[in-house]
């Protein structure tokens, strides 16, 4: 594997085997993924899709059944591969007997940082994440949002080239989320690769440039977000539409989203939108609204995971 990618996996697979019953569960299957350096990459997928297992395989908390994974070209089984990585796990459990700065210094020491640099960096980062006055306080007194910010500071202590964040804004208030986004944006400006595993589609859409969607352990979709959500169209809402008009309009290729008093039609072209409007008016219905629309990441996500489900 080449060092051209921040993360590169080849046919990565994880099968959990029950020790006594002999049952097998495939968490990740034949996953080949490449994350270029310096980008903001989002990993999405429904619950149980294998996202966390994938991240844990990258960081050696889970041993792959087969396949290979590399970070900046170095096999992840080599501990040195993890030196340029900063990681914030989901549902982290930091030792509550440590203070904020004690925690930062401990994890930085495990990353090989010498003491004077640890002290200096811990003060800088506590300031950066808004916990400047909390460095000497034991973390059992921290709120969930504060712990999340401290976790981010922990991941940044040794100036990593790759940041792996599992649900980074979980439990953080809106202002805190904005602050975290700003910090991450600043990091990517300096060339750091940010890899986010999140279930918050809007967060991934607003922050990331690239996305991969996992479903049932397989890579269902991968690409640049701007390309994936490029499918534009029109949304027409109609009022008092007789039921017999539905079939007629469906023939135009419009997708129908029934509401309480109104019905919405989604079409992909200007011509189709005009045809739908003509048919609504011809059937005696009234136009409530007409709007240009673009498909969101949520649409892409639902389409991808539901088509996989149907298959």
């Amino acid at each position, binding site marked *: 594997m080449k060092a051209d990618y921040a993360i590169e996996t080849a046919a990565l697979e994880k099968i*959990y085997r029950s020790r006594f019953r002999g049952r097998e569960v495939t968490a990740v299957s034949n996953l080949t993924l490449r994350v270029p350096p310096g980008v903001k990459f989002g990993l999405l997928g429904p619950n149980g899709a294998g996202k966390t297992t994938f991240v*844990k395989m990258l*960081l*050696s*908390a*889970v*041993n792959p059944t087969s396949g290979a994974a590399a970070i900046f070209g170095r096999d992840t089984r080599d*501990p*040195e*591969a*993890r*030196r340029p*990585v900063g*990681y914030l*796990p*989901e*549902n*982290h*459990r*930091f*030792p*509550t*007997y*440590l203070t904020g700065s*004690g925690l930062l210094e*401990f*994890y930085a*020491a*495990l*990353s*090989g*940082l*010498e003491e004077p640099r640890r002290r200096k960096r811990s003060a800088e980062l506590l300031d950066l994440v808004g916990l400047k006055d909390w460095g000497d306080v034991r973390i059992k007194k921290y709120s969930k949002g504060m712990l999340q910010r401290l976790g981010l500071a*922990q991941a940044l202590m040794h100036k990593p080239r790759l940041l*792996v964040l599992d649900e980074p804004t979980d439990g953080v208030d809106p202002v805190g989320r904005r602050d975290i986004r700003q910090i991450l944006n600043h990091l990517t400006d300096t060339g750091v690769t940010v890899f986010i595993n999140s279930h918050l589609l809007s967060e991934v859409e607003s922050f990331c440039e690239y996305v991969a969607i996992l479903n049932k352990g397989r890579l269902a979709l991968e690409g640049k977000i701007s390309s994936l959500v490029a499918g534009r169209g029109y949304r027409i809402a109609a009022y008092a539409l007789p039921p017999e008009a539905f079939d007629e309009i469906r023939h135009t290729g419009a997708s129908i989203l029934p509401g309480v008093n109104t019905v919405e039609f989604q079409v992909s072209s200007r011509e189709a939108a005009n045809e739908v409007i003509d048919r609504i008016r011809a059937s005696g219905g009234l136009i409530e609204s007409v709007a240009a629309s673009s498909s969101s990441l949520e649409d892409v996500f639902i389409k991808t995971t539901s088509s996989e489900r149907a298959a």
Partner: protein
Amino acid sequence: MSAPLTHSRSRVFAALISDTFQEARARWLFWGLFGLSSLLIAIFLFVLRIDIVQGAVSFMGIEATARPIYNIRKFVNVSYSWVSIVLYIWGTFLAVFASAGLIPSVLEAGRISLLLSKPLTRTTLLMGRYAGNLAVVALNHIYLICSIWIIIGLKTGIWEPRFLLAIPISLFIFAVLLCVVVLIGVLSESAALSVMVAVALMLISTILAQRDVVVKLLDSQWSRDLWLAFYWIIPKIYDFGVAMKDIILYNRGTDWLTPAWTSALFGITVLSGAIYIFKRRDF
């Protein structure tokens, strides 16, 4: 191996030991150990304040109190040897109880995944934790045994340095039992089960050590062989206690090498097994 990498590894190891200390302090295990040791020291001080030396000499039949004590050294050596046994049992039990939770705690979900994401091997992580545990207990053993030695020395004016052998001997046996605690901790993540197994081993070792008597009582050869096989496999906690007492009391070379290497072999095997399982586990 490059020098910066070696420095980095020693920093990691030092950080893991320091973290174990901090956790032991925060969980009151450190202070609990020292508190109970201090209590034992206080009891010992109190007993000696009553000035029972003369009376005890008489009681033990070494010398009548009516006459001057000429064999006070023998008495003090007997005291030293018995006190060392008490400290050996007391210290080992307490140490096992105190350390049992320190391995499972590090394996908690959300904590272990972050530790494993750092550039260190799983062996380093486990060994760092092991060394941290050992260091906590070593400090306590040094405090307890040295204090008692100083008290007896001040009281009697007889300073028997062989008594201090109780420190490395107790620590060695604890190191072997800690291997078992680590293995059970890695397998089950249960502190209670770790304690149960370690204490059971101490008791089994005592029973198996009575082999001279038991072998005569067993009627079949295979049962005698089985008994002896178990005896050689299990760490010789009882034999070590007896060897320590004999060395302190008689200053004679008892066969402590055989129990030492067989127990060490047991510990190394168990710890290697723990590392092997820890490396293969998914968290």
